[in-house]
């Protein structure tokens, strides 16, 4: 795996501090997506490797990635390029606002790329067409092979400027790739960019692997593996490929997740028919028992401040969601609705807990406040579970399975995403069938 930390030089050319007229409200549904024009980035004629840049149509490719990102939010409507009225280089200097308004665009993105001293410099500007003003202008310098990431970072900056929220485009998804018949699935850890590009497989499929989750710096992954037929929680360094067992437990460990500071892994340990929650300090390797109950306690997830843990327990009879302080004190049941509840995951914003609900043969992905009030079910299906939050706490990714016939045919597992508004449900394309997605934090912070 290539190094994920890439030095990005980051210049602020100028910023308009004045309030813009355009503001995209992302707290409600996408009934009226903002029409936006993304001009192909202009390639500077003074650039090194000019021919190769032209051949690769790098300027156009970057603009396409930005468009695709924006379209996927459901909040923006990128306009077709054949209606564009101005050449990229001229528009980037100063757009003729009235012309762009004519094609009903409200915002315009322009840019320029240049390669100098083997470094790629990408410059872009965001224009408010209604107010006839520049809203944002930034440039990034990086290695030329890194151009896709620059496109994602630009998308994040524009999203942030227009919505007031941090973006989630310069991120990755780790998941379990699935192949083969339902009763003989071959499962591998896979990682890809948030837009489905650049899939890499991190394990070979020789053993069953489940539930991968990133650490806060996205360098490490904790997951469960049946290596040597011993189901245990593992730690994988994505760069080096080195894997190790987490803790020295005499039985099955599962459902791992990092603490928000990355210093601990919290997980379940099953022994003699009872599963409880434990944490392990990454540095000292000291293991601490958090719950001690004869019921099943699993699927733990920390609050973003690390002070609380939400988890799943059947101590009341069937699966419900509970919260407690991170030392295991003050256990409180928070779900009382009809149905059973699993896989609680605390939002990175701290305000909500996402969950899976099962009721009358249907599966729901929902959110509620961390005290269990305000439950909202976002999507109903035959089978879906395991939500994971986008780093800005606005989108959930989860997996969905389809029904199979008497021979097991018709079974599929796919990743889906949905906004917490309940709008914008989307299939997340993967090379193979997929499950257990986990969303990274922003790669460049």
């Amino acid at each position, binding site marked *: 795996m290539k190094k994920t930390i890439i030095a990005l030089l980051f210049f602020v050319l100028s910023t308009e501090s004045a309030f813009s007229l355009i503001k995209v409200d992302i707290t409600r549904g996408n009934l009226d997506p903002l029409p936006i024009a993304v001009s192909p980035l202009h390639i500077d004629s003074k650039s090194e490797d000019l021919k190769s840049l032209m051949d690769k149509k790098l300027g156009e490719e970057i603009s396409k990635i930005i468009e695709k990102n924006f379209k996927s939010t459901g909040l923006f409507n990128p306009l077709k390029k054949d209606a564009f009225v101005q050449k990229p280089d001229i528009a980037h200097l100063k757009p003729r606002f009235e012309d762009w308004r004519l094609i009903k665009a409200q915002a315009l993105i322009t840019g320029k790329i240049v390669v100098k001293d083997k470094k790629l410099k990408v410059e872009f500007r965001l224009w408010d067409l209604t107010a006839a003003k520049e809203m944002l202008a930034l440039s990034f310098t990086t290695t030329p092979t890194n151009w896709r990431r620059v496109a994602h970072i630009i998308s994040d900056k524009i999203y942030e400027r227009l919505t007031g929220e941090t973006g989630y485009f310069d991120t990755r998804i780790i998941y379990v790739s699935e192949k083969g*018949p*339902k*009763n003989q*699935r071959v499962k591998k850890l896979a990682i890809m960019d948030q837009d489905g590009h650049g899939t890499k497989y991190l394990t070979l499929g020789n053993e*069953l692997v*489940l*539930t991968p989750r990133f650490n806060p710096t996205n360098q490490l992954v904790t997951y*469960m593996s049946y290596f040597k*037929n011993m*189901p245990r929680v593992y730690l994988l360094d994505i760069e080096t490929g080195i894997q190790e067992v987490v803790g020295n437990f005499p*039985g*099955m460990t*599962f*459902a791992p997740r990092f603490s928000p500071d990355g210093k601990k892994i919290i997980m*379940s340990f*099953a022994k*003699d*028919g*009872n*599963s409880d929650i434990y944490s392990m300090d990454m540095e000292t390797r000291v293991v601490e028992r958090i719950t001690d109950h004869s019921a*099943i306690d*699993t*699927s733990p997830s920390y609050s973003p401040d690390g002070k609380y843990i939400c988890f*799943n327990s*059947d101590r009341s009879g*069937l*699966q419900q969601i509970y919260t407690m302080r991170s030392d295991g004190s003050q256990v409180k049941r928070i779900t009382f609705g009809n149905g*059973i509840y*699993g*896989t609680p995951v605390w939002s990175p914003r701290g305000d909500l807990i996402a969950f*899976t609900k*099962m009721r009358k*043969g249907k599966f729901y992905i929902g959110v509620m406040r961390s005290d269990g009030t305000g439950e909202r079910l976002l999507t109903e299906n035959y*089978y879906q*579970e*395991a939500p994971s939050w986008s780093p800005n706490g606005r989108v959930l990714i989860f997996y969905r*399975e389809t*029904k*199979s*016939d*008497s*021979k*097991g045919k018709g*079974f599929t597992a796919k990743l889906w995403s949905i906004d917490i508004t309940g709008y914008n449900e989307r299939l997340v394309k993967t090379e193979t069938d997929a*499950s*257990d997605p986990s969303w990274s934090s922003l790669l460049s912070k």
Partner: protein
Amino acid sequence: MKFNSALKNFVLVLFSTLLISACSTAKKASVDTVDDVYTGTDTVEYLANGVPDRVFFATNKSSLTTRSRDTLRKQATYLRKNKDLTVTIEGHADERGTREYNLALGERRANAAKDYLMTYGVSGKRISVISYGKEKPINPASSPLAWSQNRRSVTIKAN
């Protein structure tokens, strides 16, 4: 009068025929599960003649039924006779639950079987358990019957 009694007999015969056929259809519909627990033999294999390898569970439950206990006593007798044998008990869940909870549930089911074998004189040292949760269905269909066959713990010879 005579005619009447003949008719009565006829009606009685007809009625009981109906009753029997009603019974047999009812029996057919419920032959494979009792109280949500699979009671058929379709997926069952045998450790030895007359010693079934698996027991079945109700949805979300890990309690042993009378029938399961009977099966496990047979396994215990067999294991006591074959003292060198060690076994692995695999615990499984159906596909209608969350993955992580199902792993815990499979472990609880396998241990329910292990505990019962130990009660009947099999040393715990001879038994290891492993849970596969919903990962290894024996019947890949999405039907109540398949799910009931998949909620199981299976005793497998390990040596």
